[in-house]
């Protein structure tokens, strides 16, 4: 098995824990001494660095929230001087004010290495042509993957987002073997390619997709793999962690979280109790080595499972399974929690509907009303109204069973739902308007 950093990636679990404890202890001392924000937070929580005497003591430390970054806009949480900073990224802030993240040279190096390990773990390396179709600029996706791909000696094709037809031409002409983008953008590319007469499976050298920046599902993976003839890997991260950080290994059962950089806890999202490995809960992330913008017990808001079972690939670092959804994305429909990813999961297992969907939530009188718009797939289209009505009932029925909430389904024309180049917006919630 080829690895980027065999020594770290196969470090025995006990050694990893010792290393994590040492890094955590150092970090807490440093922040308590030099960061007014963390000093104050720890005092409020009545915890002193001397109270951290084991890795498990991490739970004595106070949480950090996205709101902390917004409230301290732009850079009041930074713990590096301007001379030490070498880059900013700015997150668009879908909810409220944008947040700014900063990096020292050491931060960029760790970020890039994290991606280098991940890209190698899914089989990429020297000789691969990696098309980076994430946005370049303030968003972390483009530049992050750019440098990660360069580090492993691959050739980067920095197409960024947009101009899809040109992206497909370049993919063919320069023999791209891998593409990094959101799963929704790849679906869009596949459709545009077919309109141009290009069948990605046959007419390109693409073998690998590194897909993320939005939640997706395993059934979507199967569809993409089959349709485009590639292996599709999940990638995970957020700007607070540095950017995209972790990529699935060839096992495709979740991404290894590099434990020398990141400590993950899984908590019950309501009680805040620590959950055992294998239990589903909210991820809480501590970045052990970040210099410019430390993160301690950051409530990232994502829901998943930490898998500590040994991985057949030989890497000892635990894996996070595919993200089920963000707490922020969760819809409450008539009191029932619904994640858009559940809707996707259900729809993708119904061959009669296409890959795109849209959820519209409205309030009818006192009741929430959830409408799911789906495009009927080419093969399923029947000239008989009855057949179409049956497909619609089938979709409604399956969604109701999966979500425990009644859903109205609307069949729409193919291509009529919005396509996205970056992160997709699949939910329209009109209740707050």
């Amino acid at each position, binding site marked *: 098995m080829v690895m980027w950093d065999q020594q770290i990636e196969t470090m025995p679990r006990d050694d990893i824990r010792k290393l994590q404890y040492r890094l955590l202890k150092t970090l807490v001392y440093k922040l308590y001494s030099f960061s007014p924000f963390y000093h104050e937070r720890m005092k409020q929580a009545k915890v002193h660095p001397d109270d951290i005497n084991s890795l498990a003591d991490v739970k004595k430390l106070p949480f950090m929230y996205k709101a902390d970054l917004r409230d301290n806009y732009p850079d009041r949480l930074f713990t590096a001087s301007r001379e030490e900073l070498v880059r900013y990224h700015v997150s668009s802030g879908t909810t409220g004010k944008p947040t700014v993240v900063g990096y020292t040279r050491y931060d960029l190096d760790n970020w890039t290495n994290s991606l280098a390990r991940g890209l190698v773990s899914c089989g990429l390396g020297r000789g691969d042509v990696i098309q980076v179709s994430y946005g370049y600029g303030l968003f972390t996706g483009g530049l992050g993957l750019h440098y990660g791909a360069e580090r492993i000696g691959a050739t980067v094709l920095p197409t960024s987002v947009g101009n899809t037809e040109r992206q497909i031409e370049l993919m063919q002409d320069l023999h791209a073997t891998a593409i990094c983008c959101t799963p929704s953008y790849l679906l869009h590319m596949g459709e545009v390619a077919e*309109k141009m007469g290009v069948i990605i499976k046959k007419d390109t050298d693409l073998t690998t997709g590194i897909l993320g920046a939005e939640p997706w599902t395993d059934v979507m993976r199967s569809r993409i793999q089959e349709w485009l003839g590639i292996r599709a890997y999940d990638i995970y991260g957020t700007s607070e962690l540095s950017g995209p950080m972790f990529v699935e290994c060839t096992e495709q059962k979740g991404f290894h979280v590099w434990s020398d950089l990141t400590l993950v806890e899984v908590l019950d999202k309501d009680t805040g109790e620590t959950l055992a490995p294998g239990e589903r809960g909210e991820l809480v992330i501590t970045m052990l080595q970040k210099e410019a913008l430390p993160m301690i017990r950051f409530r990232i808001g994502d829901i998943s499972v930490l898998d500590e079972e040994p991985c057949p690939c030989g890497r000892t670092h635990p894996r996070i399974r595919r993200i089920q959804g963000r707490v922020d994305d969760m819809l409450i429909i008539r009191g029932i929690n619904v994640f858009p990813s559940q809707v996707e999961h259900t729809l993708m297992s119904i061959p009669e509907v296409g890959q795109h969907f849209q959820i519209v939530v409205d309030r009818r009188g006192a009741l929430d009303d959830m409408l799911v718009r789906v495009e009927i797939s080419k093969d399923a*289209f029947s*000239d008989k109204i009855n057949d179409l009505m049956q497909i619609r009932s089938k979709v409604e029925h399956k969604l109701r069973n999966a979500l425990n909430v009644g859903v109205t389904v609307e*069949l*729409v*024309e*193919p291509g009529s739902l919005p396509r996205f180049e970056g992160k997709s917006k699949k939910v329209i919630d009109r209740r707050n308007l």
Partner: protein
Amino acid sequence: MDVKNYIIRQISVFSENKPGRLASIAKAFQEEKINILAFSIAEADGFGVVRALVNQPDKAFKKLTSLGYNVAFTDVIAVKMKDEPGGLFEIAELLGEAGINMEYAYAYSGKEAAVLIIRVDHVDEAVSRILTKGGTLLEAKVFS
């Protein structure tokens, strides 16, 4: 008798039930200089299916597909009726006696005669039975 001669390829288009959709389809036909010979709209809650017999079905299929429409070909047959009171009854009775179950039907009254276009489950069998019963079917080439 070759049954195939009587099987007509109808073009069926999935359409949302909202203003402007029919115009968009009709415009596509106009741009490609495709003549519509017969046409109907079936509607359900929120969506519909536009069905048409056109003189260049392949061209129509290609054009609509390129515009992103979900399009399918459906085999139908066209039964000639007398354009006078009782014309439909005569044919409907014939179809009933022949044991033919219609999925759907629509009609037009043209220059030469009235025509009932029907979609049935087993088209080959239906053609033979109608002809045996003495009905008149229009050949597919009439529509090209």
